[in-house]
Protein backbone atom coordinates (compact mmCIF):
# COMPACT_ATOMS: atom_id res chain seq x y z
CA UNK A 1 0.00 0.00 0.00
CA UNK A 2 1.34 3.41 -0.99
CA UNK A 3 1.16 6.18 1.61
CA UNK A 4 -1.49 8.81 0.99
CA UNK A 5 -2.65 12.08 2.50
CA UNK A 6 -5.98 12.58 4.23
CA UNK A 7 -7.82 15.89 4.39
CA UNK A 8 -11.28 16.33 5.93
CA UNK A 9 -13.13 18.91 3.83
CA UNK A 10 -15.56 21.26 5.56
CA UNK A 11 -17.37 22.60 2.50
CA UNK A 12 -18.38 21.41 -0.97
CA UNK A 13 -16.09 24.01 -2.57
CA UNK A 14 -13.11 22.93 -0.50
CA UNK A 15 -13.67 19.28 -1.45
CA UNK A 16 -14.00 20.16 -5.15
CA UNK A 17 -10.80 22.24 -5.07
CA UNK A 18 -8.83 19.44 -3.38
CA UNK A 19 -10.19 16.76 -5.71
CA UNK A 20 -9.61 18.91 -8.82
CA UNK A 21 -6.00 19.59 -7.87
CA UNK A 22 -5.09 15.90 -7.58
CA UNK A 23 -7.22 14.64 -10.47
CA UNK A 24 -7.45 10.85 -10.63
CA UNK A 25 -5.01 10.54 -7.72
CA UNK A 26 -7.66 11.76 -5.27
CA UNK A 27 -10.90 10.15 -4.13
CA UNK A 28 -13.68 11.32 -1.84
CA UNK A 29 -14.04 9.26 1.35
CA UNK A 30 -17.39 8.66 2.99
CA UNK A 31 -18.00 5.46 5.00
CA UNK A 32 -14.88 3.91 3.48
CA UNK A 33 -16.19 0.36 3.50
CA UNK A 34 -15.20 -0.08 -0.16
CA UNK A 35 -12.55 2.63 -0.67
CA UNK A 36 -10.40 1.93 2.39
CA UNK A 37 -10.34 -1.80 1.61
CA UNK A 38 -9.43 -1.16 -2.04
CA UNK A 39 -6.61 1.23 -1.19
CA UNK A 40 -5.22 -0.76 1.73
CA UNK A 41 -5.24 -3.95 -0.34
CA UNK A 42 -3.35 -2.12 -3.12
CA UNK A 43 -6.12 -2.47 -5.69
CA UNK A 44 -6.31 1.31 -6.04
CA UNK A 45 -3.39 3.75 -5.69
CA UNK A 46 -4.14 7.23 -4.37
CA UNK A 47 -2.24 10.33 -3.26
CA UNK A 48 -5.14 11.83 -1.36
CA UNK A 49 -8.40 10.90 0.36
CA UNK A 50 -10.74 13.85 0.80
CA UNK A 51 -13.12 13.07 3.65
CA UNK A 52 -16.48 14.51 2.59
CA UNK A 53 -18.65 13.12 5.37
CA UNK A 54 -18.44 16.22 7.60
CA UNK A 55 -19.79 18.52 4.89
CA UNK A 56 -23.36 19.63 5.78
CA UNK A 57 -24.70 18.96 2.25
CA UNK A 58 -23.55 15.32 2.29
CA UNK A 59 -25.30 14.71 5.62
CA UNK A 60 -28.71 16.07 4.84
CA UNK A 61 -31.62 13.70 5.46
CA UNK A 62 -34.90 15.52 5.02
CA UNK A 63 -38.23 14.20 3.86
CA UNK A 64 -41.56 15.84 3.19
CA UNK A 65 -44.67 14.58 1.42
CA UNK A 66 -44.52 17.60 -0.89
CA UNK A 67 -40.85 17.73 -1.87
CA UNK A 68 -39.76 14.14 -1.35
CA UNK A 69 -36.43 12.96 0.03
CA UNK A 70 -33.18 14.88 0.04
CA UNK A 71 -30.55 12.30 0.98
CA UNK A 72 -26.93 13.31 1.56
CA UNK A 73 -24.43 11.06 -0.18
CA UNK A 74 -22.58 10.30 3.09
CA UNK A 75 -25.63 9.33 5.17
CA UNK A 76 -24.99 5.80 6.47
CA UNK A 77 -27.44 3.01 5.59
CA UNK A 78 -28.77 2.53 9.12
CA UNK A 79 -30.17 6.07 9.20
CA UNK A 80 -32.48 5.20 6.33
CA UNK A 81 -34.10 2.11 7.81
CA UNK A 82 -34.06 3.65 11.32
CA UNK A 83 -36.35 6.43 10.06
CA UNK A 84 -39.94 5.16 10.08
CA UNK A 85 -41.29 7.90 7.82
CA UNK A 86 -38.59 7.43 5.17
CA UNK A 87 -38.90 3.63 5.37
CA UNK A 88 -42.65 3.92 4.83
CA UNK A 89 -42.30 6.32 1.91
CA UNK A 90 -39.46 4.45 0.17
CA UNK A 91 -39.63 0.84 1.41
CA UNK A 92 -37.59 -0.44 -1.55
CA UNK A 93 -34.65 1.71 -0.49
CA UNK A 94 -34.96 0.56 3.12
CA UNK A 95 -35.09 -3.10 1.90
CA UNK A 96 -31.65 -2.59 0.32
CA UNK A 97 -30.10 -0.50 3.12
CA UNK A 98 -30.96 -3.30 5.57
CA UNK A 99 -29.10 -6.06 3.71
CA UNK A 100 -25.81 -4.39 2.76
CA UNK A 101 -23.13 -6.08 4.84
CA UNK A 102 -23.73 -6.53 8.56
CA UNK A 103 -24.46 -4.12 11.38
CA UNK A 104 -20.93 -2.68 11.46
CA UNK A 105 -20.97 -2.00 7.71
CA UNK A 106 -24.42 -0.38 7.83
CA UNK A 107 -23.15 1.99 10.54
CA UNK A 108 -20.64 3.48 8.09
CA UNK A 109 -21.52 2.57 4.50
CA UNK A 110 -23.56 5.16 2.63
CA UNK A 111 -26.03 4.85 -0.24
CA UNK A 112 -23.93 7.46 -2.06
CA UNK A 113 -20.81 5.36 -1.67
CA UNK A 114 -22.67 2.25 -2.81
CA UNK A 115 -23.57 4.08 -6.03
CA UNK A 116 -20.09 5.60 -6.56
CA UNK A 117 -18.42 2.22 -6.03
CA UNK A 118 -20.45 1.23 -9.12
CA UNK A 119 -20.55 -2.48 -8.48
CA UNK A 120 -22.89 -4.20 -10.95
CA UNK A 121 -24.29 -6.02 -7.88
CA UNK A 122 -24.83 -2.93 -5.68
CA UNK A 123 -28.05 -3.42 -3.72
CA UNK A 124 -29.13 0.22 -3.44
CA UNK A 125 -28.85 1.02 -7.15
CA UNK A 126 -32.02 -0.78 -8.38
CA UNK A 127 -34.09 1.02 -5.71
CA UNK A 128 -32.49 4.37 -6.64
CA UNK A 129 -33.39 3.67 -10.27
CA UNK A 130 -36.99 2.67 -9.60
CA UNK A 131 -37.52 5.59 -7.21
CA UNK A 132 -36.33 8.00 -9.93
CA UNK A 133 -33.46 9.31 -7.81
CA UNK A 134 -31.50 12.21 -9.25
CA UNK A 135 -27.81 12.43 -8.32
CA UNK A 136 -26.54 15.90 -7.45
CA UNK A 137 -22.88 16.17 -8.49
CA UNK A 138 -20.59 19.06 -7.51
CA UNK A 139 -17.53 19.90 -9.57
CA UNK A 140 -15.22 22.68 -10.73
CA UNK A 141 -17.94 23.97 -13.09
CA UNK A 142 -20.74 24.01 -10.53
CA UNK A 143 -23.36 21.35 -9.90
CA UNK A 144 -25.15 19.04 -12.30
CA UNK A 145 -27.91 16.48 -11.97
CA UNK A 146 -27.72 12.94 -13.38
CA UNK A 147 -30.51 10.32 -13.17
CA UNK A 148 -29.45 7.28 -11.12
CA UNK A 149 -29.79 4.90 -14.09
CA UNK A 150 -27.20 6.93 -16.04
CA UNK A 151 -24.63 7.27 -13.23
CA UNK A 152 -22.70 4.00 -13.64
CA UNK A 153 -20.86 3.45 -16.90
CA UNK A 154 -19.13 0.13 -16.21
CA UNK A 155 -17.90 -2.01 -13.30
CA UNK A 156 -16.33 0.54 -10.91
CA UNK A 157 -16.84 3.29 -13.52
CA UNK A 158 -19.13 6.31 -13.23
CA UNK A 159 -19.92 9.60 -14.95
CA UNK A 160 -17.90 11.47 -12.31
CA UNK A 161 -15.08 13.52 -13.86
CA UNK A 162 -11.90 14.52 -12.06
CA UNK A 163 -12.74 17.10 -9.40
CA UNK A 164 -16.38 16.01 -9.16
CA UNK A 165 -18.08 14.19 -6.32
CA UNK A 166 -21.59 13.03 -5.45
CA UNK A 167 -23.16 15.39 -2.92
CA UNK A 168 -26.72 14.11 -2.49
CA UNK A 169 -29.80 12.51 -4.03
CA UNK A 170 -33.15 14.09 -4.75
CA UNK A 171 -35.87 11.45 -4.72
CA UNK A 172 -39.38 12.57 -5.74
CA UNK A 173 -42.23 12.31 -3.24
CA UNK A 174 -44.10 9.01 -3.55
CA UNK A 175 -47.29 9.27 -5.60
CA UNK A 176 -50.68 8.17 -4.29
CA UNK A 177 -51.16 4.38 -4.32
CA UNK A 178 -47.49 3.71 -4.94
CA UNK A 179 -44.85 1.57 -3.29
CA UNK A 180 -41.52 -0.09 -3.94
CA UNK A 181 -39.70 -3.33 -3.16
CA UNK A 182 -36.18 -4.72 -3.48
CA UNK A 183 -34.91 -8.26 -3.08
CA UNK A 184 -31.87 -10.25 -4.11
CA UNK A 185 -30.96 -13.89 -4.43
CA UNK A 186 -28.04 -15.09 -2.28
CA UNK A 187 -27.24 -18.64 -1.17
CA UNK A 188 -26.86 -17.49 2.46
CA UNK A 189 -29.19 -15.62 4.80
CA UNK A 190 -27.04 -12.50 5.29
CA UNK A 191 -23.64 -10.99 4.54
CA UNK A 192 -23.41 -11.82 0.84
CA UNK A 193 -23.29 -10.21 -2.57
CA UNK A 194 -26.29 -10.46 -4.87
CA UNK A 195 -26.27 -13.23 -7.46
CA UNK A 196 -29.09 -11.15 -8.94
CA UNK A 197 -31.01 -8.23 -7.43
CA UNK A 198 -34.34 -6.78 -8.55
CA UNK A 199 -36.20 -3.66 -7.51
CA UNK A 200 -39.65 -2.48 -8.52
CA UNK A 201 -41.84 0.53 -7.94
CA UNK A 202 -45.50 0.63 -8.92
CA UNK A 203 -48.16 3.33 -9.07
CA UNK A 204 -51.71 1.93 -9.08
CA UNK A 205 -55.01 3.69 -9.84
CA UNK A 206 -57.37 4.72 -7.04
CA UNK A 207 -59.15 1.32 -7.11
CA UNK A 208 -55.74 -0.38 -6.91
CA UNK A 209 -56.74 -2.64 -9.79
CA UNK A 210 -54.67 -1.17 -12.66
CA UNK A 211 -51.11 0.02 -13.10
CA UNK A 212 -50.66 3.73 -13.74
CA UNK A 213 -46.93 3.15 -14.15
CA UNK A 214 -44.11 0.92 -12.95
CA UNK A 215 -40.32 0.86 -12.93
CA UNK A 216 -38.04 -2.17 -12.72
CA UNK A 217 -34.32 -2.07 -11.88
CA UNK A 218 -31.88 -4.99 -12.01
CA UNK A 219 -28.48 -5.70 -10.44
CA UNK A 220 -25.69 -8.19 -11.19
CA UNK A 221 -26.91 -9.08 -14.70
CA UNK A 222 -24.87 -6.57 -16.77
CA UNK A 223 -21.73 -4.39 -16.43
CA UNK A 224 -23.90 -1.82 -14.65
CA UNK A 225 -27.23 -2.01 -12.82
CA UNK A 226 -30.02 -1.69 -15.39
CA UNK A 227 -33.31 0.15 -15.78
CA UNK A 228 -35.63 -2.35 -17.50
CA UNK A 229 -37.39 0.30 -19.53
CA UNK A 230 -39.53 -1.78 -21.88
CA UNK A 231 -40.60 -4.21 -19.19
CA UNK A 232 -41.57 -1.25 -17.01
CA UNK A 233 -43.52 0.49 -19.78
CA UNK A 234 -45.40 -2.72 -20.58
CA UNK A 235 -47.31 -2.41 -17.31
CA UNK A 236 -48.68 1.12 -17.76
CA UNK A 237 -52.48 1.03 -18.05
CA UNK A 238 -52.71 -2.73 -17.62
CA UNK A 239 -54.91 -4.44 -15.12
CA UNK A 240 -53.04 -5.75 -12.04
CA UNK A 241 -52.88 -9.48 -12.78
CA UNK A 242 -50.48 -12.41 -12.73
CA UNK A 243 -50.53 -12.29 -16.51
CA UNK A 244 -49.31 -8.66 -16.64
CA UNK A 245 -46.67 -9.22 -13.96
CA UNK A 246 -45.41 -12.41 -15.61
CA UNK A 247 -45.19 -10.70 -18.99
CA UNK A 248 -43.15 -7.84 -17.51
CA UNK A 249 -40.86 -10.32 -15.74
CA UNK A 250 -40.39 -12.20 -19.01
CA UNK A 251 -39.57 -8.90 -20.78
CA UNK A 252 -37.03 -7.97 -18.08
CA UNK A 253 -35.25 -11.27 -18.72
CA UNK A 254 -34.38 -10.17 -22.26
CA UNK A 255 -32.18 -7.26 -21.20
CA UNK A 256 -30.01 -9.37 -18.87
CA UNK A 257 -26.46 -9.79 -20.19
CA UNK A 258 -24.85 -11.53 -17.20
CA UNK A 259 -21.54 -13.33 -16.86
CA UNK A 260 -20.88 -16.71 -15.27
CA UNK A 261 -18.73 -16.48 -12.15
CA UNK A 262 -18.29 -18.03 -8.71
CA UNK A 263 -21.73 -16.72 -7.65
CA UNK A 264 -23.80 -18.01 -10.52
CA UNK A 265 -23.98 -19.00 -14.15
CA UNK A 266 -25.45 -17.02 -17.02
CA UNK A 267 -28.41 -19.42 -17.22
CA UNK A 268 -29.12 -19.17 -13.49
CA UNK A 269 -28.93 -15.39 -13.51
CA UNK A 270 -31.22 -15.00 -16.53
CA UNK A 271 -33.73 -17.30 -14.85
CA UNK A 272 -33.42 -15.35 -11.59
CA UNK A 273 -34.19 -12.06 -13.35
CA UNK A 274 -37.62 -13.36 -14.23
CA UNK A 275 -38.29 -14.85 -10.79
CA UNK A 276 -37.04 -11.85 -8.82
CA UNK A 277 -38.73 -9.27 -11.07
CA UNK A 278 -42.04 -11.05 -10.53
CA UNK A 279 -41.50 -11.14 -6.77
CA UNK A 280 -40.38 -7.49 -6.64
CA UNK A 281 -43.46 -6.35 -8.58
CA UNK A 282 -45.78 -8.49 -6.47
CA UNK A 283 -44.07 -7.24 -3.32
CA UNK A 284 -44.60 -3.61 -4.32
CA UNK A 285 -48.24 -4.30 -5.33
CA UNK A 286 -48.88 -6.04 -2.02
CA UNK A 287 -47.51 -3.01 -0.15
CA UNK A 288 -49.83 -0.66 -2.02
CA UNK A 289 -52.83 -2.88 -1.33
CA UNK A 290 -52.15 -3.22 2.38
CA UNK A 291 -51.49 0.52 2.86
Amino acid at each position, binding site marked *: *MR*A*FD*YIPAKTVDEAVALLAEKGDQAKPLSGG*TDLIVMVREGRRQLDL*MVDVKDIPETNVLSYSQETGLHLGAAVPCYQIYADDEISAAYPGLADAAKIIGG*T*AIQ*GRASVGGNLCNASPAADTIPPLIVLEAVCVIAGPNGTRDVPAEQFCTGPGQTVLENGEFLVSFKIPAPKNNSSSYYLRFIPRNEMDIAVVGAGASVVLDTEKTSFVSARIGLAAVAPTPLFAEEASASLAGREVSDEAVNAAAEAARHIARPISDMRGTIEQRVHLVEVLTRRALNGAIHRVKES
Partner: protein
Amino acid sequence: MPKKVHVQTTINGETVEFLCEPRQSLLEVLRDELGMTGAKEGCNNGNCGACSVILDGRLVNSCIVLGVETEGKTVETVEGLAEPGKLHPIQEIFLEDAALQCGICTPGFIVATKALLDKNPNPTEYEVRYWLAGNLCRCTGYDKIVRAVLDSAQIMSSEVGA
Protein backbone atom coordinates in the same frame (compact mmCIF):
# COMPACT_ATOMS: atom_id res chain seq x y z
CA MET B 1 5.94 10.75 2.20
CA PRO B 2 2.85 12.06 4.00
CA LYS B 3 3.55 13.34 7.48
CA LYS B 4 2.19 11.64 10.53
CA VAL B 5 -0.95 13.28 11.79
CA HIS B 6 -1.66 14.22 15.37
CA VAL B 7 -5.02 12.84 16.49
CA GLN B 8 -6.88 13.42 19.74
CA THR B 9 -9.72 11.08 20.55
CA THR B 10 -11.53 9.61 23.54
CA ILE B 11 -10.96 5.90 24.07
CA ASN B 12 -12.90 4.15 26.83
CA GLY B 13 -13.59 7.48 28.51
CA GLU B 14 -10.01 8.76 28.48
CA THR B 15 -8.56 11.43 26.23
CA VAL B 16 -5.86 9.85 24.11
CA GLU B 17 -3.41 11.50 21.73
CA PHE B 18 -1.42 9.65 19.09
CA LEU B 19 0.50 10.16 15.88
CA CYS B 20 -0.42 8.03 12.88
CA GLU B 21 -0.02 7.86 9.14
CA PRO B 22 -3.26 8.45 7.20
CA ARG B 23 -3.03 4.93 5.78
CA GLN B 24 -3.08 3.28 9.20
CA SER B 25 -6.38 1.74 10.21
CA LEU B 26 -7.91 2.38 13.61
CA LEU B 27 -7.18 -1.29 14.35
CA GLU B 28 -3.46 -0.77 13.62
CA VAL B 29 -3.44 2.37 15.75
CA LEU B 30 -5.08 0.55 18.66
CA ARG B 31 -2.82 -2.49 18.47
CA ASP B 32 0.51 -1.10 17.22
CA GLU B 33 0.58 2.48 18.50
CA LEU B 34 -1.47 2.22 21.70
CA GLY B 35 -0.78 -1.38 22.74
CA MET B 36 -4.49 -2.20 22.98
CA THR B 37 -4.61 -5.71 21.56
CA GLY B 38 -8.20 -6.59 22.51
CA ALA B 39 -9.53 -5.91 19.02
CA LYS B 40 -8.25 -8.70 16.76
CA GLU B 41 -7.15 -8.71 13.15
CA GLY B 42 -9.03 -11.40 11.25
CA CYS B 43 -9.81 -10.63 7.62
CA ASN B 44 -8.61 -6.99 7.65
CA ASN B 45 -11.29 -6.08 5.09
CA GLY B 46 -14.55 -5.66 6.95
CA ASN B 47 -15.97 -9.16 6.68
CA CYS B 48 -15.25 -10.94 9.96
CA GLY B 49 -15.95 -8.50 12.81
CA ALA B 50 -13.02 -9.63 15.00
CA CYS B 51 -11.89 -5.98 15.18
CA SER B 52 -15.33 -4.60 16.21
CA VAL B 53 -15.27 -1.38 18.25
CA ILE B 54 -17.94 1.22 18.96
CA LEU B 55 -17.28 4.58 17.28
CA ASP B 56 -19.50 7.46 18.40
CA GLY B 57 -22.09 4.94 19.56
CA ARG B 58 -22.14 2.82 16.38
CA LEU B 59 -20.61 -0.60 15.94
CA VAL B 60 -17.85 -0.48 13.29
CA ASN B 61 -15.04 -2.67 11.98
CA SER B 62 -11.89 -0.86 13.13
CA CYS B 63 -9.88 -2.40 10.25
CA ILE B 64 -11.81 -0.25 7.76
CA VAL B 65 -11.79 2.99 9.73
CA LEU B 66 -8.72 5.18 9.34
CA GLY B 67 -7.04 6.23 12.59
CA VAL B 68 -7.11 9.85 11.37
CA GLU B 69 -10.89 9.68 11.03
CA THR B 70 -11.29 9.37 14.82
CA GLU B 71 -10.17 12.95 15.56
CA GLY B 72 -12.60 14.34 18.14
CA LYS B 73 -14.59 11.11 18.26
CA THR B 74 -15.39 8.58 20.97
CA VAL B 75 -14.13 5.00 20.73
CA GLU B 76 -15.17 2.09 22.97
CA THR B 77 -13.13 -1.09 22.84
CA VAL B 78 -13.36 -4.42 24.65
CA GLU B 79 -10.72 -3.15 27.14
CA GLY B 80 -13.27 -0.62 28.41
CA LEU B 81 -15.86 -3.18 29.49
CA ALA B 82 -14.41 -4.73 32.62
CA GLU B 83 -13.86 -2.74 35.80
CA PRO B 84 -10.71 -3.47 37.83
CA GLY B 85 -11.13 -6.97 39.24
CA LYS B 86 -14.65 -7.35 37.84
CA LEU B 87 -15.67 -8.53 34.42
CA HIS B 88 -18.58 -6.97 32.56
CA PRO B 89 -21.74 -9.14 32.81
CA ILE B 90 -21.47 -9.98 29.09
CA GLN B 91 -17.92 -11.26 29.63
CA GLU B 92 -19.02 -13.27 32.69
CA ILE B 93 -21.84 -14.90 30.78
CA PHE B 94 -19.72 -15.70 27.72
CA LEU B 95 -17.44 -17.57 30.16
CA GLU B 96 -20.27 -19.27 32.06
CA ASP B 97 -22.01 -20.35 28.86
CA ALA B 98 -18.69 -21.46 27.34
CA ALA B 99 -19.49 -19.29 24.34
CA LEU B 100 -15.97 -19.44 22.97
CA GLN B 101 -13.63 -22.00 21.54
CA CYS B 102 -10.37 -20.59 20.13
CA GLY B 103 -11.32 -17.12 21.34
CA ILE B 104 -10.14 -14.97 18.44
CA CYS B 105 -13.64 -13.80 17.51
CA THR B 106 -14.72 -13.36 21.14
CA PRO B 107 -13.73 -9.69 21.75
CA GLY B 108 -15.56 -8.72 18.58
CA PHE B 109 -18.66 -10.67 19.58
CA ILE B 110 -18.59 -9.12 23.06
CA VAL B 111 -18.29 -5.58 21.71
CA ALA B 112 -21.03 -6.24 19.14
CA THR B 113 -23.22 -7.67 21.93
CA LYS B 114 -22.61 -4.57 24.05
CA ALA B 115 -23.63 -2.36 21.11
CA LEU B 116 -26.79 -4.45 20.59
CA LEU B 117 -27.87 -4.48 24.24
CA ASP B 118 -27.18 -0.73 24.63
CA LYS B 119 -29.71 -0.19 21.85
CA ASN B 120 -32.07 -3.11 22.37
CA PRO B 121 -31.93 -4.59 25.91
CA ASN B 122 -34.34 -7.45 25.11
CA PRO B 123 -33.63 -8.73 21.60
CA THR B 124 -35.27 -11.79 20.12
CA GLU B 125 -33.09 -14.66 18.92
CA TYR B 126 -33.75 -13.51 15.35
CA GLU B 127 -32.59 -9.99 16.18
CA VAL B 128 -29.45 -11.34 17.86
CA ARG B 129 -28.55 -13.49 14.86
CA TYR B 130 -29.28 -10.64 12.44
CA TRP B 131 -27.22 -8.14 14.47
CA LEU B 132 -24.26 -10.53 14.75
CA ALA B 133 -24.28 -11.57 11.07
CA GLY B 134 -21.09 -9.55 10.55
CA ASN B 135 -19.20 -11.37 13.30
CA LEU B 136 -17.78 -14.67 12.13
CA CYS B 137 -16.73 -17.56 14.36
CA ARG B 138 -14.66 -20.01 12.34
CA CYS B 139 -14.93 -22.60 15.11
CA THR B 140 -18.65 -22.22 14.26
CA GLY B 141 -19.75 -22.02 17.89
CA TYR B 142 -22.68 -19.80 17.02
CA ASP B 143 -25.34 -21.52 19.05
CA LYS B 144 -23.58 -21.01 22.37
CA ILE B 145 -22.73 -17.44 21.41
CA VAL B 146 -26.34 -16.63 20.62
CA ARG B 147 -27.46 -18.24 23.88
CA ALA B 148 -24.86 -16.19 25.80
CA VAL B 149 -26.18 -12.99 24.23
CA LEU B 150 -29.76 -13.88 25.13
CA ASP B 151 -28.67 -14.82 28.69
CA SER B 152 -26.74 -11.53 28.97
CA ALA B 153 -29.83 -9.60 27.95
CA GLN B 154 -31.96 -11.40 30.49
CA ILE B 155 -29.51 -11.07 33.37
CA MET B 156 -28.59 -7.45 32.61
CA SER B 157 -32.21 -6.32 32.36
CA SER B 158 -33.11 -8.12 35.59
CA GLU B 159 -30.17 -6.37 37.32
CA VAL B 160 -31.43 -3.01 36.07
CA GLY B 161 -34.91 -3.82 37.31
CA ALA B 162 -33.71 -4.99 40.76
